[in-house]
C-alpha cells in the first residue's frame, strides 16, 4: 500500500508543472481562451515533443505504456493551469476508443498520428435527450451496401471543432436505452452529410453540435464489433472520469492557494480578512474537500486497472461524486471569499470556478454518480 510516486512519475510531474508554469500564466490562459481556436497549436506540438500525447499508449504503437496513474499526474498538473489543449478529448477519449476497439489497421492509421500531434479526435456520445446516459443513443446507423448511413444529432462534443476525426456512437439495432446495439464510427470532420455548429463553453473551451443527415460511411469506418460498443465506451469513459477527477483536484488545489493568498493580503476594517474566523473555517472546509478529493482521485487512478468490474465502477462513481461535490463547493466559495474581485473576468479565480462547474457536469454530475454508487452498493 503506497501513495508515493516512482522516480519516473516524479519526473513526469515536474515536466508538466514546468510546462504549466512557463505557458499558463493567468493572462496567457485568458488570452488563449478568448482566441478563436481556444487553444494553442504550438502547445500541442510541444506536448507531442515531450511525449505526453503518447503516454497512455502501448509501446508497440509508439507510446510509453503509461497507465491511469500517469494520466492522473498529468491531468492534475494541467488542472492547476486550466490547460486548454484537447488532451482529454484526443488522447484519453479518442485514443482510448481506437486502441480498445479498433482494428490493427485503424490503430496504425490513427494512434501514431495522435502521438506525433498530427491528428486530433473528439468523441460524440451525447444527444439532446440522453443527459448522462451513455446507452441512451437515438442516432441510427443503417446498413447500406458495404457501409452505413448515419442519421441523428450529437450534442456538446468537446473539441468537436478542432478534431480531425469524430468518433460517433450510433445505434445499429435495438431501442434507445438498450446497451446492446450501439456501434462506434470514425467520421471525418467536414464529411458531407455532417453539419457542425461551433460554440464556446462556459469554461473557455470549444464544443460543437453535429447534425448527421444521411451521412454515408464505408465499412472501414466501423470501430470495433457492430452493436457491441457499449462496454468499450463505458471503460474508456471510466478512464476519462478518472482523468477529470485529477484535473479537478489540481484546479481545486490551485483555487484554494489563490484564495488563501488573497485573504491573507486583502484588508478590511484594518486587518487581513483571513483573520476573520468564519473565513478561516470556510477555507479549512475548502482545503478538506480538496484533500478528500485528492485521496479519491489517487484511489481511482490505482483502481482503474482492477479486473473486478463492480469494485472498479464503484470506485469511479464514488470518486466522481466526491469530486463533483467538492468542485462546486470550492469553486463557489472561492468566488465568495474574493468578494467583488472574484466576480471579474480579469481575475483568475472565476475561471477556476467555471471549469470546476463544467467538470461537475461532465460524464454525469454528482447526483448521477451518487445514484450509480448506490445501485452498485445495493
Amino acid at each position, binding site marked *: 500500500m503506497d501513495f508515493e510516486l516512482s522516480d519516473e512519475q516524479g519526473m513526469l510531474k515536474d515536466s508538466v508543472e514546468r510546462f504549466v508554469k512557463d505557458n499558463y500564466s493567468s493572462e496567457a490562459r485568458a488570452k488563449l481562451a478568448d482566441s478563436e481556436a481556444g487553444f494553442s497549436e504550438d502547445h500541442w506540438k510541444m506536448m507531442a515533443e515531450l511525449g505526453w500525447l503518447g503516454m497512455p499508449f502501448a509501446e508497440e504503437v509508439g507510446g510509453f505504456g503509461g497507465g491511469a496513474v500517469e494520466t492522473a499526474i498529468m491531468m492534475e498538473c494541467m488542472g492547476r493551469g486550466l490547460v486548454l489543449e484537447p488532451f482529454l478529448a484526443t488522447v484519453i477519449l479518442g485514443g482510448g476508443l481506437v486502441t480498445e476497439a479498433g482494428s490493427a489497421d485503424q490503430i496504425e492509421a490513427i494512434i501514431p498520428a495522435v502521438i506525433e500531434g498530427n491528428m486530433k479526435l473528439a468523441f460524440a456520445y451525447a444527444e439532446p435527450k440522453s*443527459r*448522462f446516459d451513455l446507452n441512451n443513443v437515438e442516432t441510427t446507423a443503417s446498413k447500406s451496401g458495404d457501409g452505413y448511413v448515419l442519421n441523428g444529432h450529437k450534442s*456538446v462534443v468537446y473539441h468537436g471543432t478542432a478534431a480531425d476525426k469524430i468518433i460517433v456512437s450510433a445505434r445499429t439495432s435495438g431501442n434507445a436505452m438498450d446497451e446492446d446495439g450501439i456501434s462506434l464510427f470514425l467520421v471525418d470532420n467536414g464529411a458531407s452529410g455532417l453539419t457542425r455548429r461551433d460554440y464556446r*463553453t462556459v469554461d473557455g473551451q470549444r464544443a460543437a453540435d453535429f447534425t448527421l443527415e444521411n451521412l454515408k460511411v464505408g465499412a472501414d469506418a466501423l470501430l470495433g464489433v457492430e452493436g457491441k460498443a457499449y462496454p468499450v465506451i463505458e471503460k474508456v469513459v471510466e478512464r476519462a472520469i478518472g482523468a477529470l477527477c485529477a484535473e479537478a483536484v489540481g484546479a481545486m488545489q490551485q483555487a484554494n492557494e489563490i484564495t488563501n493568498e488573497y485573504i491573507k493580503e486583502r484588508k478590511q476594517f484594518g486587518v487581513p480578512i483571513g483573520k476573520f474566523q468564519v473565513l478561516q473555517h470556510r477555507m479549512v472546509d475548502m482545503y478538506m474537500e480538496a484533500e478528500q478529493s485528492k485521496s479519491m482521485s489517487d484511489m481511482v487512478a490505482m483502481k482503474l486497472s482492477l479486473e473486478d468490474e463492480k469494485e472498479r465502477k464503484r470506485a469511479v462513481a464514488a470518486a466522481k461524486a466526491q469530486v463533483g461535490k467538492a468542485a462546486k463547493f470550492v469553486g463557489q466559495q472561492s468566488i*465568495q471569499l474574493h468578494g467583488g474581485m*472574484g466576480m471579474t473576468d480579469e481575475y483568475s479565480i*472565476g475561471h477556476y*470556478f467555471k471549469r470546476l462547474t463544467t467538470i461537475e457536469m461532465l460524464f454525469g454530475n454528482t447526483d448521477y454518480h451518487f445514484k450509480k454508487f448506490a445501485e452498485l452498493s445495493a
Partner: protein
Amino acid sequence: MDLSFSKEDLAFRDEVREFLQNSLPPDVKDRCDRGLHPTREGQIRWQKILHEKGWMAPNWPKEYGGTGWSITQKYIAAHEFGQASAPIATPFGVSMVGPVIYTFGNQEQKDQYLPRILASEDWWCQGYSEPGSGSDLASLQTKAVRDGDDYIVNGQKIWTSYAHYADMIFCLVRTDPKAKQQEGISFLLIDMKTPGITVKPIYGIDKENSLNEVFFEDVRVPVKNRIGEENKGWTYAKFLLGNERTGIARVARSKRQVVRVREIAAAEMSGGRPLIEDPDFIAKLTRIEVDLMALEYTELRMLSMLANGKKLSAEPSLLKIRGTEIQQRLTELMVESLGMYGAPYEPERDYAGRNDIHPGPDYAHGPMAEHLYLRAATIYGGSNEIQRNIVSKMVLGL
C-alpha cells in the same frame, strides 16, 4: 392572526395582473424571465410605461409621486411583478437616491431630480464602493475639496453597476480628511457628463459589462449638489442602506424560478424518464420550495409587524441571507436541469464567430448567464457574512 386578503386587495391584485398582461413589452419580459441583464432602451421604455400608470415609485410618499399603496398592496404588486417576470425599476434612482433626496434634500433638489427619476429621464448610478473599501465602506478615500462654489473631486469608485448607462451618480466623498472615518464624509450628486469623469468597464465572470470603475480627476461639482450638511453624508448613506430592504428577499422572482425549473425538468429526460420524476432532483427542488415558503411567510410576518407599527432591527438581514441563498440554489438547479446543455455559453457582446442562439433548447438560453451573475448576490449589498455579523450584534447582542 389572519392570512386572507380583503376584497379590495383582491381587486387590486386583478388590476396589477391585467396591467402587466396588457402593458409589459414581450421583449422586456423575455429577458427578465431568462435572467438576462436588461437593455438600457428596454428598461427605460418599460419604466416610462410604469410612470404613465403612476406606478413608478410604490415606496415614495404620495406628495412626491408615490402610489399610496398599503403594505399589503405593495406585497401583492411585488408578487405579481415577480410572477409575470416584469422588471422592477432600476433601484439606483427610485429606491436609493430618490428617498435620500425627498428626505434630506432641499426644495430645489427635490424639484430638479425627483420628477426626472419618475420619468426615467436620468439613469442614476451609485458611487459607494472603492478599491480599498468593500465591506468596510466607511474607509473610502475619494476626496472633495472646496473651491468657491464648487467641490473638486478626485478619486475612484468601483463595482459601479450600469455607470456606462448613467446620467447621474450619487457619491460618497471625503470632505474632512482629518475627521474620524464615518465623520467627514459628504453626499454629492454628480452629472456623469462633467469633465474629468472616466468610466472603465469591468467585465464580469459572465463576460458581460454591468459593472464599472469610475475615475474622478479634478471633477468640479457645484456645492448646491450636496445633499444636506457637509460631513454628514454618512447619516444619509446609512439611511439609504437601511432603506434598501423592500423586496430584498425576491420571493416572487424565486417563485417564478421554481415554475421554470419545473417546466425545464418536465421537458428534460434522465434515465429514459422525465427529470421531474427523479427523486434526487425532486428532493433538492422540494427543499428549496419549503425554504422559500418559510421565507415568504417570514417576510409577511415582518410586513405585518410594520403594518402594526412595530420597528424591525436587523431582521431584514435574514431576508437578504436566505433570499440570496435560495436564488443561488435555484439557478444552480436550473443549470443542472439542462444536463450538458448547461455548458455552452457565450456572452452577448460582439466578437468573431459568436453564436446568437444557444445550441440547446430555447430554455437553455439564460440559466448559465444568471447562475454566473448571481454568484454576486451573496456578496453585494453587504455580503452574507457581514449580514450575519449584523444579526449577531443587533439581534443577538453577541
